[in-house]
C-alpha cells in the first residue's frame, strides 16, 4: 500500500548539534566518508487506498501547522509505493 512520507529537516542555517555528534562518531568507528551529517525526522502516514491530491494538500497543511516548525524547519511531502 502506498503511504505519504513527510521529511522534516532543520533549515540549513540552523545549527544541528545532533548531526554534528553523529558526524564526529562516524570516524571513531572507522567510517571516513562523511563531510557533514544533518539529522531530521520522517513521518509515514497511511491512508485508505492510494493518496488523493486532496489528501496530499491536507498533509501539506498539517506538515506546516504541526509536523514542522516553519521558523526552523523545512519539509517535503511525497508518496512512497
Amino acid at each position, binding site marked *: 500500500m502506498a503511504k505519504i512520507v513527510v521529511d522534516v529537516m532543520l533549515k540549513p542555517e540552523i545549527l544541528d548539534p545532533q548531526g554534528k555528534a553523529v558526524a564526529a562518531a562516524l570516524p571513531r568507528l572507522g567510517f571516513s566518508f562523511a563531510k557533514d551529517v544533518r539529522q531530521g525526522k520522517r513521518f509515514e502516514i497511511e491512508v485508505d487506498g492510494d493518496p488523493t491530491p486532496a489528501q496530499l494538500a491536507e498533509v501539506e497543511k498539517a506538515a506546516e501547522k504541526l509536523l514542522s516548525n516553519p521558523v*526552523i524547519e523545512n519539509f517535503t511531502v511525497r508518496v512512497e509505493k
Partner: protein
Amino acid sequence: MKIGVVTFPGTLDDRDAARAVRHAGGEAISLWHNDADLKGVDAVILPGGFSYGDYLRCGAISRFSPVMEPIIDAAKGGMPLLGICNGFQVLAEAHLIPGALTRNHELHFLCRDQKLTIENTNTAWTSSFAQGQEILIPLKNGEGAYMCDDQTLAELESEGRIIARYVGENPNGSRNLIAGITNERGNVVGLMPHPEHAIDSLTGPSADGLGFFTSVLKAMVG
C-alpha cells in the same frame, strides 16, 4: 490578584510556580491543559517541564491543548503571560513570540545556577528589577538555544525586546546570549531559566526570581 498556572501532562514546575505566586502576594489558580476555562485569572504562567513528553518538538503538542486557545486570545488582548523553560517553548510554538528553542549546542542537559542581566524593565514581568541588574537563578534545559533569523534578531535588539541575557560563557548556544524575550506589547515574556526556583534563600540560590512575580502583581494593580 489571580494568577493561573497551567498543568500539562509532563509539567514539573507548576507547584513551584504557584508557590512563587503566593510568596509574591498573589493567589495561584491551577489551570488544566484539557479545560478551556481560565477561571477568571488576571495573568497566566506556563511552567517548565516536559509537556507531552517533548514529543515531536518541545511545546509543539501542548500549544494545541484546549486551555491554550483562551490563553492565546487573552494574551493577544494584553493579558500578562509568562512562559518559563518549557513554557517559553510553548510560546514560541504558538508564535506569541518570535523564534524557536533548539537543542543546546553541546547536547548536554544543563542544570546549574546561572547569572543573568535584566535588560528590559518595562514588561509586565520585569518592572520590579533595575535596568542592568544581575540576578542568579537556576537554569535547567536540554533545548534552550534561542534561534531566530537575522532580521528578527536585529528587531529584538533595536526594540529592546531581549529582557534577559546570560552572563559569561554562552551556556546553550542561544543567539546573542538571549535568556528571555518579550513580545512587542511587553505583556508576553518567555524565559529559559527558572525564577520560580529562586524565591527564597532556603530553597534556591537566591531570592532574585521573586521579582518576576512581584512585577506582574504590580502591573495588574496598575
